């Protein structure tokens, strides 16, 4: 017994390349065994036709490791079906599900961009804040425009605060008129005035 060179790759008997048939994986995804569910979620990362199933399962899954694997796979798959399935979760009472949905959507900039206007027009201010959380990760030419529109029009102080917070990282001189409008619209809010000054300072440095 000693050090020896591995002559074969250490395969687990029967585990390599187990049938990746969609039906079988979908069945495992909702089975009783946690490890099987996690494996199924991982293996479905290469199956774009599984997006809807994964989105649906995400809301039912209670095991954090499996939920994490589903989120990773959905982030890899992306696409319209995934995004449209996840957006309703932003209104969920389940904070973990909501945060997971935000996290996945942050990784899908190309697929999410066309939904941003709709999210920012939603009557629920919490959902509009989540939309700001999502767009903060997007590299999109309309980013400043979306944020400026919030400063000009959004009626809720917390949504405007979230937008200012993000602008304090990225603002250019183009947003200064919108910043001034936000200050005037929320003249009685010391936090907004403070955040406006931070954005103005950042914009003038650019």
């Amino acid at each position, binding site marked *: *017994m*000693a*050090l*020896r*060179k*591995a*002559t074969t*790759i*250490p*395969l*687990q008997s029967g*585990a*390599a*390349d187990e049938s990746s048939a969609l039906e079988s994986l979908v069945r495992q995804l909702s089975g*009783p*065994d*946690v*490890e099987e569910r*996690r*494996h199924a979620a*991982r*293996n479905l*990362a*290469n199956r774009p036709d599984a997006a809807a199933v994964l989105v649906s399962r995400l809301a039912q899954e209670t095991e*954090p*490791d499996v939920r*994490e*694997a589903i989120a*990773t796979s959905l*982030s*890899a798959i992306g696409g319209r079906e995934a995004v449209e399935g996840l957006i309703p979760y932003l209104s969920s009472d389940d904070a973990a599900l909501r945060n997971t949905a935000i996290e996945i959507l942050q*990784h899908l900039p190309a697929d999410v961009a066309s939904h941003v206007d709709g999210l920012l027009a939603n009557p629920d201010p919490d959902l509009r804040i989540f939309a700001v959380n999502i767009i903060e990760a*997007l*590299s999109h030419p309309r980013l400043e425009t979306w944020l400026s529109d919030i400063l000009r029009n959004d009626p809720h102080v917390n949504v405007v605060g979230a937008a200012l917070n993000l602008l304090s*990282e*990225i603002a250019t001189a183009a947003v200064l008129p919108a910043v001034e409008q936000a200050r005037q619209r929320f003249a009685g809010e010391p936090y907004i005035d403070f955040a406006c000054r931070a954005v103005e300072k950042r914009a003038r*440095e*650019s």
Partner: protein
Amino acid sequence: MPEPCISDVDFTMFRELFYRKTGIWFEDGKRYFVDRRLSERILASGKGSFRQYYQKLRWSDNGAEWQALINALTVNETYFFREVHQFECLVNSMLEEIAQHKTPGGVIRIWSIPSSSGEEPYSLAIYLLEKWRKLSEFDVEILASDIDTEALERARAGVYSARSVQYLPKEYLLKYFTPLPGDQYQLNEEIRGTVAFSRINLVDPQDTGMFQNIDVVFCRNLLIYFDDISRRRAAETLYDALAPGGFICLGHSESMSRISSLFTLRRFPEAIVYQKPIRRAP
């Protein structure tokens, strides 16, 4: 081009962004070091100001600048017996625990990824030969993988500079290496022959699906270069490659707890490592 100015606010923004990306936090005392390296990268990237550079990092980098920046702000040099406390932990703690679950004569598998030019897997081989008293009771296989085929070729050749072997005890250098002209040293064939090298992309399931029943993984200073999703996929891959009860060693600035909840943190006297639970509840 003049040296870019990095204000206090810039420094705060930058270290928060760097922490979010890599898990590495710079205290205020590191300000001078960070400013210098950051300024160099700003100029090298062709950006005229911190602000422009920050925007590139935040939104439009394809990964190349992040890699250059992480290289500039971390010690990424590889050499024999680097972070040797983890090797001590291997022989004093992890292997002792693994051996309890093996039958005499059983196989123990250790996987080094990324193996780069071979310093880490060969260090493991030397350390086990010299320090693990139970080596004679088991067959130990060392697997070594990297995505870079040129690095793998260098590893197989086993020729190293004096700098690369500077932390090896003198007696090991004399015992396991042959001096070459030009202040270089070649690892003896006997040791080179114990390590199985392979080309692997850690986030490609086609590459990694075959690796199973690994007892210990050394995956140091690799995950800091990945984006969030790739990092999590890599963690899941490593988890699936490990045997139940197997261990994973990360670089000193890395934390699996930030990446995945799959592993259990283990504090041994020599090092903190992560373990795949032996059993999971159904």
